[in-house]
């Protein structure tokens, strides 16, 4: 499949010129954002097998800091991105250190609890806009405010970030760190017996994942120019990351992309079909998909394809 990677890159690069206009560009941007977030989650949830269901905490932090920097000090939102990354890093350490020495469930429970804690708390804190949230610059004062009227510049910025996340994941996969992550997922006790520093490795994975998720959040709030507790820290933000990665194939490089490819158009479609109340039905659908995945194909589409493709090949050769 050597040709597929350049083909994919070309497709992503030229997509806005293949399908033109705000409607398609909007979907494209949504796809990229979903792919970035899910790929970020994938590092700790997919490769290391530490299932975080509260990753919105990192997304929210990354989403709030740029608008906060603008709101408090009039700085361009981009200036807040590194701060978001630092805070997310600290949060990752705060959560990972106690829970990674316990059974896996504690980590998962902690992620939900802390995400909720932050969401509620931010909703009461006036400094960060409380329940109303924060807004970015309505009209850009200069190019570095990144307030573009067209989706196109955002598309390419997001694409660049996606490329960075994917490349990092690729390098991780081949490295000692990556092998250790997979060993931890496959069997912690055996990994320990081979000298894998389990706790430290998990922590590193969470930190890396947190930083990337934070950047995804920043991209989101810079583009939409608005954030509130629900869109930053809500459980549905966490759910979306998990389902996209899991649907495509958690623990694989392109799994999150495949998941985003399947789910983002689906979400756009259901939102249109079901109208305003559509989000309720969309989440019923999400819940159902997650349950079915867990029950029948936890490896996602990637795993399914690996099982089915050889059979298809054989049949086409026989024909």
């Amino acid at each position, binding site marked *: 499949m050597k040709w597929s990677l350049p083909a994919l890159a070309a497709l992503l690069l030229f997509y806005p010129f293949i399908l033109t206009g705000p409607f398609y560009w909007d979907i494209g941007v949504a796809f990229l954002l979903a792919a970035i977030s899910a790929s970020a989650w994938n590092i700790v949830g997919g490769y290391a097998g530490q299932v975080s269901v509260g990753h919105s905490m990192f997304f929210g932090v990354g989403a709030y800091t740029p608008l906060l920097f603008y709101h408090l000090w009039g700085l361009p939102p981009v200036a807040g991105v590194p701060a978001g990354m630092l805070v997310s890093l600290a949060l990752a350490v705060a959560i990972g250190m106690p829970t990674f020495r316990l059974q896996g469930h504690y980590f998962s429970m902690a992620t939900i609890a802390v995400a909720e804690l932050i969401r509620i708390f931010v909703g009461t804190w006036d400094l960060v806009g409380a329940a109303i949230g924060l807004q970015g610059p309505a009209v850009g004062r200069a190019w570095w405010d990144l307030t573009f009227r067209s989706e196109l510049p955002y598309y390419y910025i997001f694409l660049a970030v996606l490329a960075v996340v994917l490349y990092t994941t690729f390098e991780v996969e081949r*490295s000692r760190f990556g092998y250790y992550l997979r060993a931890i997922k496959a*069997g912690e006790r055996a990994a320990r*017996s081979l000298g894998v520093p389990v706790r430290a490795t998990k922590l590193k994975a969470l930190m890396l994942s947190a930083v990337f998720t934070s950047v995804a959040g920043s991209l989101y709030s810079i583009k939409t120019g608005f954030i509130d507790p629900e869109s930053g820290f809500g459980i549905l933000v966490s759910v979306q990351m998990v389902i996209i990665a899991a649907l495509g194939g958690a623990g694989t490089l392109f799994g999150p992309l495949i998941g985003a490819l399947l789910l983002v158009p689906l979400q756009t479609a259901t939102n249109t079909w079901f109208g305003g109340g559509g989000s309720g039905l969309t989440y019923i659908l999400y819940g159902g998909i997650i349950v079915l995945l867990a029950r029948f194909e936890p490896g996602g589409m990637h795993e399914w394809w690996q099982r089915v493709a050889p059979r298809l090949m054989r049949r086409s050769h026989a024909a």
Partner: protein
Amino acid sequence: MLLSAQNISKAFGSFLAVRGADLAVAEGEIIGLIGPNGAGKSTFFNCLAGDAVPTTGRVLFDGIDVTRASAEAHARAGIGRTFQVPATFEDMTVLENVMVGAFLRHHHRGTARETALRIVEMTGLARQSAQRARSLGTPGRKRLEIARVLATGPRLMLLDEALAGLTPTELQQAIALVRRIHELGITLVIVEHIMEVIMTLAQRVLVFNQGHVIAHGNPREIVANEAVIEAYLGRGHRRRREAP
């Protein structure tokens, strides 16, 4: 003494799985550990390997106190172990499994891979190196575990029933492999039920029963030892043997 375990006890609540067990292994030896099921061998092993912290006693490795050290630290110090029920990384290939072991001493992918390839070759897994571990049968998995631990460059290997469930041919191959490992200079402590393995490989044998060592000597002495026979077969057998 490469490994010295003194007065090891391990309690689970009020149940004493191991009590006052001692073990001294000199570098280059092959020690056999036998005993009926439930005698505490695996728990003792876990204490030696850092998987469990003994309630009393000390474990010294090359003079360093490793009693409370983590399993990771044990591996880094040079103690490797296999598991009674193979715990291979099912979704990773044979080569990848061994590479995880190799990465302990070789931080770069290139050298880790080379080491892993060499070991895969040596342990007879070359043909399956690209297969997922889950596609191997139990004998294959046991061999993979050995290969994986070997890749960590241990000075001492604790093998927990690594030769169980093999056909006669496989058994001979496995015994030959263990000999090759020994020739590399690695000290071995082997838990086994198969007497042939103990007789041919072990230089000294410890017999466990109900948590402590009941006999200790070379294989020939052990097999003839009354207490050992009684442990395995019960009192009645001893009386029957005494009748003319």
